[in-house]
């Protein structure tokens, strides 16, 4: 069965336009998220009911800050890759697809940058 459109075959790309790289990045981020999210759940449990001072002390520890920044960056990257696949499956029409993919990318970068800046600010104390 021929599974690709003639144009798709000429371009030589999958639906993500960068198929293998996308697939691989999804796996690498998934592997990294296993320890990071487990660490995060344990941390959140330890911060149940915490006040600002306790949170600041937690995020002020070098190891926590490093893991938190890594979690933020990798989590948002994984989310963007995942939502991209979902959009490619359900949103038809080239324009709608391109616009939704852009909205997702911009949103993810905005949220991710806000999170990183916020944790750095609290950690370095202003």
């Amino acid at each position, binding site marked *: 069965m021929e*599974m690709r459109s003639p144009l798709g075959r000429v371009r030589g790309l999958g639906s993500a336009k960068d198929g293998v790289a996308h697939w691989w990045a999804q796996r690498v981020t998934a592997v990294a998220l296993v320890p990071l999210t487990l660490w995060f759940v344990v941390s959140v449990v330890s911060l149940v009911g915490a006040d*600002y001072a306790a949170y600041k002390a937690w995020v002020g520890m070098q190891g926590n800050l490093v893991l938190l920044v890594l979690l933020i960056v990798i989590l948002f990257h994984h989310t963007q890759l995942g939502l991209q696949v979902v959009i490619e499956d359900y949103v038809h029409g080239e324009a709608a697809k391109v616009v939704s993919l852009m909205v997702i990318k911009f949103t993810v970068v905005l949220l991710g940058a806000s999170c990183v800046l916020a944790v750095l600010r609290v950690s370095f104390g202003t």
Partner: protein
Amino acid sequence: MKSGNRPLSPFLMYRPQFTSILSITHRLTGIALAAGTLLFTYWLTSASYGPEAFARAQALIGSVFGRLLLFGWTLALFYHLCNGIRHLAWDAGWGFELPRLKATGWVVIVVSITLTFLSWAAGYAVRGGA
């Protein structure tokens, strides 16, 4: 241009079966967790606005409604995490035979529910009292 006879996602072709339900659930939990990043962002950014803003965020998350949402997200996270490992095992070439698919599917369900309850028990222990 006619695009030929393209395949559909498995869950668009078959009647719901155990394994296909697990697969849709992976997608649904992924989308739910993506929505959860909004709360995650609110929590982290609130702290950068100072103690009052952070206390407000903590109170909101600790409210009955907040805890309900958080419980759902805990379950979604553990399911997606466990089933994600199942996905990675398939990619490594392990576990794609039907008996194993079913067995590991049950493992995912049991482990994710167990981890969710353990985390919440630990959370209540830290909080002290009900």
